[in-house]
């Protein structure tokens, strides 16, 4: 049986993003622009998780994120955990934190907002992190957690 299993478990160096809600996995791929990378990426989704029911996991070989890059995924995967791997060992564990400003990720809830009517990068100030509330830089309306739509 063992030779039929794909060997994806370990990476030598890189980042493992774990505890992504299964429904958000491909949003994370898109927010981090993983489609533009030419390194080895392993994506698993629909894996059983005691915490999330079903989770996704992404293993990126030779990729390391800066805080401000990885924090972008906090909107869709607030409990994602990062394992930083060096020489097959986890050398650091990190959690994501919602940044103070969200650019080009979410859509403004207000249909009369200029960003929903013209080609403009959306921009929000995060006015509340516990229960996420985003204030549009343009129309000044609040988009709350239940209405957040990822572009």
């Amino acid at each position, binding site marked *: 049986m063992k030779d039929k299993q794909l060997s994806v478990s370990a990476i030598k160096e890189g980042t493992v993003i774990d505890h992504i809600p299964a429904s958000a996995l491909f949003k994370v791929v898109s927010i981090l622009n993983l489609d533009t990378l030419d390194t080895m990426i392993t994506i698993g989704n629909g894996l059983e998780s005691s915490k999330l029911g079903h989770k996704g996991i992404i293993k990126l070989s030779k990729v390391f994120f800066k805080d401000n890059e990885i924090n972008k995924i906090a909107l869709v995967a607030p409990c994602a955990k990062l394992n930083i791997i060096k020489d097959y060992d986890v050398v650091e564990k990190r959690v994501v934190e919602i940044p103070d400003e969200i650019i080009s990720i979410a859509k403004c809830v207000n249909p009369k*907002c*200029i960003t929903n009517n*013209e*080609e*403009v990068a959306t921009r929000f100030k995060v006015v509340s992190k516990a229960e996420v509330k985003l204030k549009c830089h*343009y*129309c*000044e*309306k609040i988009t709350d957690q239940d209405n957040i739509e990822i572009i």
Partner: protein
Amino acid sequence: MKNKNLVSITDFTKEEYLRILELAAEFEANPRQDILSGYIISTLFFEPSTRTRLSFETAINGLGGRVVGFSDSGATSASKGETLHDTIKMVSNYADLIVMRHPLEGSARLASEVSSVPIVNAGDGANQHPTQTLLDLYSIIKTQGTLENLKLFMVGDLKYGRTVHSLLQAMSKFNPTFYFISPDELKMPPAYKMYLDDIGVSYFEGKDLTEFLAEADIIYMTRVQQERFTDPIEYERVKNAYILRREMLEGCKESMKVLHPLPRVNEIHTDVDESPHAYYFDQARNGVYARMAILTSILGIK
């Protein structure tokens, strides 16, 4: 304030408000000057607004400036599908300052990021209309002698009315007490009440217009519009409750003034017009002086 944009009332500080009001008083004393001579100001009205446009153009012409622009986007390249971005890029090559009104919210902020000259927002959808707020402040300081510690009644549509939201933000810097009087359907949105709670400004909410009016320094009336109601019967029930009549003003402070951003439909009975408390037409005239002050400060002339 030179080269500053005026997109949102929160773009200016308390000191800047007071400076504008001081200048407005100077222009009121001397409303015909040639200090904008040689300047070209563009007025881009992507949706019609007679009052605001005439007020701006009167202010510009009164100071000897030139106006280029349009009052209806149907006759412009916007109707051919040109983006706001491109229109502003082009016009900012022509004019020293752009005054714009646009039906979409956030349009003025976007314009200010694209334009090489300052933008003055003359209304972006239901969002902001800061020059209205500054003329409201000018009307208040002129009639009350101060902006500090006043009791301000806001009446009617407090949910959708952008003028009351901006006025609330601006007046909050002067230790006011607010009285919000509206039907349940049109109450002040929670976000604004939370803001007042955060900064420690006190407010009362009620449905009865006649209660406490004797306390008021300013009554700011707005229109209760039928289209805001999902239930037409509910509208019929409340519409007469928010009409201000002369007899209600008996017992008010002598210095109390009634303001209204206009146009009025029926929410202030015409019998109030002759009352010494009526101030809404003077308020509209103040708009010209306030706009003279705003334009000349941003152009760096004053």
